[in-house]
């Protein structure tokens, strides 16, 4: 699992994830991703376009980070999931509590709103 964090300006952080968000994938990035985003209460958008697999561990990770961000004035949104990953987001109702958008512009609008 690979992760690239980029400051996109105006307080926005873009995170690109590449690989599988299964148990080993979540173990590989959760601590680093949390450390990048949560202490500064980031407004963060996460690019899922190159995530080929998402399991329940990834769902738990996103809720945990989004909740911690919310307590610090930040916000998390996800964007561009592949169809099978999008189905997991819908099945678990993650999209009820974390915005999931089609592209980076609409995800950025969701965390700024």
């Amino acid at each position, binding site marked *: 699992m690979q992760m690239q964090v980029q400051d996109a300006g105006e307080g926005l952080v873009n995170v690109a994830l590449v690989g599988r968000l*299964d148990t080993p994938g979540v173990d590989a990035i959760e601590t680093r991703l949390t450390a990048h985003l949560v202490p500064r209460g980031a407004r963060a958008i996460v690019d899922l376009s190159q995530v080929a697999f998402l399991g*329940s561990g990834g769902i738990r990770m996103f809720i945990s980070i989004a909740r911690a961000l919310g307590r610090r004035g930040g916000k998390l949104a996800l964007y561009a999931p592949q169809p099978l990953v999008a189905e997991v987001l819908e099945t*678990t109702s993650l999209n009820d509590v974390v915005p999931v958008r089609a592209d980076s512009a609409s995800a950025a609008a969701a965390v700024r709103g």
Partner: protein
Amino acid sequence: MPAARAETDFPGTHAGFAAGFDWLRERLDAQELGAAPRYNVELVFEEIVSNIVSYGAVRGRELRIRVTLESAAATIVLIFEDNGIAFDPCQRTTAPPHARSLEEAQLGGFGLILVRHAARSFTYERTSAGCNRVTVTLQRAAG
């Protein structure tokens, strides 16, 4: 396609989980399986085995997991057996948690929701040898 059966046995540890997943991928690579059914098979394996590894261990006993993969024309059946704590996942909730806010959202329980969504059937029995046996049947075709 002719029915095929394969099984593996591995320790209920993170390393065992990884080895088991490698075994599953090799078997699936050898089959003509669409993207969605393959995703579902891997998702079921991920959720059931990670649950066993995380919560199944009994103090003083090595946790072992046996997985059987049965492939037929219309279905794929995964059978998970472990010697851990008795646990019937079929008794758990079927309804997705509808949280109105992040503070209300559950952090757990999603794995079994995903298994139920992916599976055509999902059964549990406690064997006479004192093991958990979970049988999950999936459709070969997307749908």
